[in-house]
Structure formats: structure tokens, C-alpha cells
């Protein structure tokens, strides 16, 4: 039981990370109708910049700020140079061009930083563990991630529901032509939304730095899961992204933990462990397939 609760916490933490990634991606898709595979690259940029600044200054906060800024700027630059030309184009073109961006960014990091994965440590303040659940010490850094995710979700909620900019963005997501007709500067709005998405990806990358290996290609591992999240949640829906991110986080974490145990009831241990691990790898995709079969537009469709 104790273990189960701890696993729920782990699922929540992964869900929060996925939410930070998918919030930006789903907005970009919802408003600009652009599939941006390079979203994972912005995550990587965040992690690399955070690790580099951390290495030279020793300050985690400084690294975090630099990462957010850098990812936001790179994101806006990419929007201006490449993505802007892809609005209204076929999805395939967008996939191909942003796939090109992935290759470019991955190889560029190898050229700049080398093949050696970078080192980044948790800040001293958060290096210990806390017993949120009595008897199960939990890394305080992961708790901080969960907290940061909740704050971001709250911030986005306020932004979208209680500010003028947020209303324009929401309006843009459901009817692009209409708000252009109402005199909103769509170009500026696009760049801003893209910058916001990039910034969140950079934040996720920077926060992942101390937990994961900071290396070239790290963006793709999370990219596919991010896409799974936004498709399950319904493309363009922030609320959908939040709920789907938590679902995917839970399935991914609990699947690896519970499936082998479940199979051990019917099968010899070695077979059960192997088969359980394989099923766990597939579980997220099964979830997506089931959701799409039942609701082809995801859980919270924005467009029909």
C-alpha cells in the first residue's frame, strides 16, 4: 500500500513533466495548426543551457532562468525563420521540416558540447528526501517539480481565463479567422504563443537536467509521449493536456510496477517479468489507441 502511494506520487511527477511539455505543444497546434516535432529540441536546449550555466556559476536558479530565456528565444527565432512559413501548409510538410530541425539541433549540440553527456546536480536545498508518506522517503527535488507543475497549471489557468491575452489565445484556438477579423494582431499572437510554449519546454528541460542525462537526442524520448498526451487530451485543449498528462504519467509508472506482479499470478516468474516489462512498454500506446477508437478527437476536443 505504501509502495502504491509512492508510485502514485511518481506517476504524478512524470505527469507534471509531460504537462509542461504538452501545454506548449497543444497550444501551438491548436492556434497555428502546426505540428512541431522540434518541441523536444527546445526541451534539450533548456537542459543544455541550464547545465552549462550551472556548471560555470554553480547556481541552479541562474541556470533555470537562463534555460527559460534561451529556450524562449530559440523558439521565437525558429518561429520567425521556419515555422511562420509553414502555417496553412500540409501537415506532412510541417512534419518533414520540423524533423529536419531535430536533426539539425541534435547534431549542433554534439558539435558545440561534444558527445560527453553534461553534468547537472540538484540544488543543495533540495538534495535531501522528505517523508510525505510516512515510511517512504521521497526526493524533495521531485516534490519541487510537482509543485512547479501545479504553479504553472495555475498560472496558465489564470492567464487563459482571466486575462485579455488569454482570451485572445483561446479564441484563436477555436476560430482563427474570427479573431483576425476582430483586429487582433495574429502574427504577434503566434510568436508570443510559440515563445510561451518554448519557454515551458525549456523549463521542463532545465528541471529534468538534474534527474536525467543531459545528452544529444534527449528530446525525442519525451517528444513521443508528449504527442501521445496531446492526442489523448484533444488537440488544442490545455485542460485535456493536463488530464491526459496525468493519465499517461500514471499508466507509464504504474504499468511497469503492477503488470509484472499481475502476470506472476498466472505465469512462471521469469516469463512474467519479461512479458510484464514488454506489456508495460506498450501500455501507453494501447491507452492512446483505445481512447482514439472511442473518441477519435480525444477526450476534450476543441475543433470538430
Amino acid at each position, binding site marked *: 500500500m505504501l*509502495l502504491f502511494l509512492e508510485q502514485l506520487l511518481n506517476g504524478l511527477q512524470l505527469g507534471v513533466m509531460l504537462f509542461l511539455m504538452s501545454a506548449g505543444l497543444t497550444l501551438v497546434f491548436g492556434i497555428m495548426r502546426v505540428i512541431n516535432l522540434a518541441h523536444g529540441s527546445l526541451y534539450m536546449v533548456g537542459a543544455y543551457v541550464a547545465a552549462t550555466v550551472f556548471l560555470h556559476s554553480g547556481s541552479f536558479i541562474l541556470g533555470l532562468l537562463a534555460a527559460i530565456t534561451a529556450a524562449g528565444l530559440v523558439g521565437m527565432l525558429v518561429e520567425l525563420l521556419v515555422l511562420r512559413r509553414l502555417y496553412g501548409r500540409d501537415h506532412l510538410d510541417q512534419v518533414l521540416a520540423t524533423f529536419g530541425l531535430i536533426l539539425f539541433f541534435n547534431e549542433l549540440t554534439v558539435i558545440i558540447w561534444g558527445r560527453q553527456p553534461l553534468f547537472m546536480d540538484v540544488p543543495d536545498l533540495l538534495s535531501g528526501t522528505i517523508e510525505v508518506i510516512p515510511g517512504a522517503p521521497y526526493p524533495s527535488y521531485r516534490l519541487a517539480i510537482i509543485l512547479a507543475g501545479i504553479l504553472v497549471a495555475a498560472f496558465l489557468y489564470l492567464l487563459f481565463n482571466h486575462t485579455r491575452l488569454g482570451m485572445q489565445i483561446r479564441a484563436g484556438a477555436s476560430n482563427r479567422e474570427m479573431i483576425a477579423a476582430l483586429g487582433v494582431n495574429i502574427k504577434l499572437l503566434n510568436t508570443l504563443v510559440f515563445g510561451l510554449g518554448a519557454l515551458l519546454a525549456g523549463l521542463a528541460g532545465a528541471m529534468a537536467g*538534474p*534527474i536525467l*542525462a543531459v545528452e544529444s537526442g534527449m528530446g525525442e524520448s*519525451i517528444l513521443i509521449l508528449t504527442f501521445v498526451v496531446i492526442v489523448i487530451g484533444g488537440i488544442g485543449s490545455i485542460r485535456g493536456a493536463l488530464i491526459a498528462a496525468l493519465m499517461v504519467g500514471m499508466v507509464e509508472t504504474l504499468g*511497469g*510496477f503492477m503488470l509484472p506482479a499481475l502476470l506472476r499470478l498466472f505465469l512462471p516468474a521469469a516469463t512474467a517479468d*519479461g512479458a510484464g*516489462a514488454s506489456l508495460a512498454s506498450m501500455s501507453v500506446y494501447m491507452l492512446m489507441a483505445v481512447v482514439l477508437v472511442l473518441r477519435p478527437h480525444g477526450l476534450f476536443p476543441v475543433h470538430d
Partner: protein
Amino acid sequence: MRGFIVTAALAALCSISGNIVASAPVKIGMVTTLSTKAGYLGEDIRDGFRLAMDLEGGMLGGVPVELLVDDDGRDPGKGKQIAERFMQRDGVKIMTGIVFSNVAMAVVPKVVRDGVIYISPNAGPSALAGKGCHENYFNVAWQNDNLHEAVGQYATDSGFQNIYLLAPNYPAGKDALQGFKRYYKGNVAGEVYTKLGQSDYAGELAALRAAKPDAVFFFLPGGMGINFIKQYAQAGLNKEIPLMGPAFSFDQRLLKAVGDAAVGVVNGSQWNHDLENDANLLFVEAFEKTYGRMPTLYASQGYDAARLIGSALKQVGGDLSDMSAFRAALRKADFASVRGAFKFGSNQHPVQDIYVREVVRTEAGDITNETRKKVFANHRDAYAAECAM
């Protein structure tokens, strides 16, 4: 189309020049992994190999050699394609370089049947050590199980009774745990297979803590290992449960990315930079001077592969027309390995000493491995008996 004409013209040129110049350098084809997250492994194998050539002024065993390198991107199909190009276009007779077992399984059985000598500087899948052994296949690193076996023996010697095992869900992962259990005699607290390429181990760590083992053995090569060790330390587990594994998650470049989290971890290796023999002293110093970084075990294996080839080339005077003479020369393993004593067993895999090392922070502040003790002397792999050679 232009590519075709250019390549055709180039190829024609090569074949002509090949006929005129009799003493053209011996070509060695290196298929290795330079891109993807695991790119630094291939980079070190290549750099170690090149170092041996550079120290001899572009020669190996006094014979001029030319090293052709291409990146397989960790993709078996790509590796196969490069090997075919080396054989068919460049007429390569000696190949080496493959990092990963799955690429090796795609490339090696075919090339050795076609008469190419393959010297493995890293991968040693059991299929190629046992039933699938071949007179043209030499392994100068280890059979995949060896380093795990050493840690298993160490765990038994140190009196651990209840160990938790963790590896990715793929053949090399299963081999790793098999290898460990071959020499570990205590109880298994849990055996977990994770997704290949997994980055977050929070779930596994929670289950691990709940199982209350007295030690953890894990095999997670490359970035997976970095993630695991960092998260293990963040969960505070490094202060409670000792961690051990094969050298693959504790090479010098990886340690830089892991930092203090790895300090105290015990790992099995056939080589370390502090082994005291003349060949090793020379190698470590030259490597640091040339590349500005400490060598890893991969670099040591690349270097040894080159030196092994050099020793055989010297014996046949650079003449590869009689392959059986060249094979016999290779089998003698008449070179000073950086790991000390080295010879081939009946299946042409190493018979060598294996050590355990401990990750320490030096007074200068560097994090590195220190050799603790020799676990096996003249260790052979478990599959040699199955080899009909």
C-alpha cells in the same frame, strides 16, 4: 545520378591504383557507433585505435595501415551496409569497431563467413562465443557475461545475502543478470527488467526500496546508467544500500556526467587506468596528451585491438594472402595488453584477469575509478565448451 558517376569513377580509380602499388597500406574497416546518445563509446574505441597507429607513425607492427571509419548509428541494418561497402568496394580483409551486440549479430556472422577477420573491441554476445564461434572471429575485449560474473563473485566473496537485480529488457540485459547469478550464490531479492532506453526510474526505485535488499546489482549502459545513478542518490538510497554493476556505467566520461552520486559504487572491469604495467602507463599518458581527456575502458579496448592486429601483421610481414598464417599469428596474441596478462581461449575469446574497482573522489577533486582487488585470475567465459573449434 551524379553521385553514381562520381562513385563509379572513384572506384575505378581505386582499383587501378590498387593494382600498381603493391605495398599499399593494409586497410582496416571500422564499423562503429559515432552518432546517437551512445556516440561517445565509438568515439573512444576509434580514438584508442588511432592512438596505437599514431604512436607508430601510421603503422601497426611496422606495416603501413589505413583505417576506414564509418558510423553505424547503432542500427544493425546500417552496420551491415557499411560492412558490405568495406568488403566489396575497399577490399577490406580486417574489420573491427562494433560497439553493440545487436549490430555485431547482424554484421559478424556474415563477414566472417566471407573470409574477413573480425576483431571485436567491445561486443561479445554469447551466440558468437559458443555455438556460433568462428575461426575468423576474435574478441579482444570480453565475452558479454564476464564483467557481470566478476561482480557476482565479488558479491559472494563479500558476503552479500540478498541482492536486488535490475537490467533493461533486451538480450544483453538478460545475459547480464545470468552472468551475475552464475557466480552469486545468495538470495535474489527481486529481478526487474526495465524498458530499453528508459530515462526515469522513480517507479523501480520505490519498488527497490520496499524490497529491502542488502545490495543492488544493475546493468544499465550509457545514458540509462547516468539517469539511474543520479536518481538513486537523490532518493537517498546510496547512503543505505550499496550499489554495484559492470564497468559500463562507470567509465571515465560517464562519471563526469554523474558526479558525486556515483562515489562508492563498486564495479567490475578487466582494465583500469591505474593498473601498473608498462603498456598501460604509456597508453594512459599518451591518450591524455593526445586527446586531453582520461581514457575509458572502451579506448583501452580499441587500443588493444590495434595492437593485436599490429602483432599479427608483424609476424606475417603485412602479407594477408595467407589467411591461415594471419589467423595463427592473431591466436598467439603476442602483444603487451594494457590490462596485463592476456591470451585467447579455445573460442578465441579472452582469458584474462578481472578486477573490481570503486568510484572515488580524488584529492584533486576528480571522480574516478580505483582498482580494489582482483576477483578472477585467467578467467574464461562460460560458452567456450559449446564452441566446436
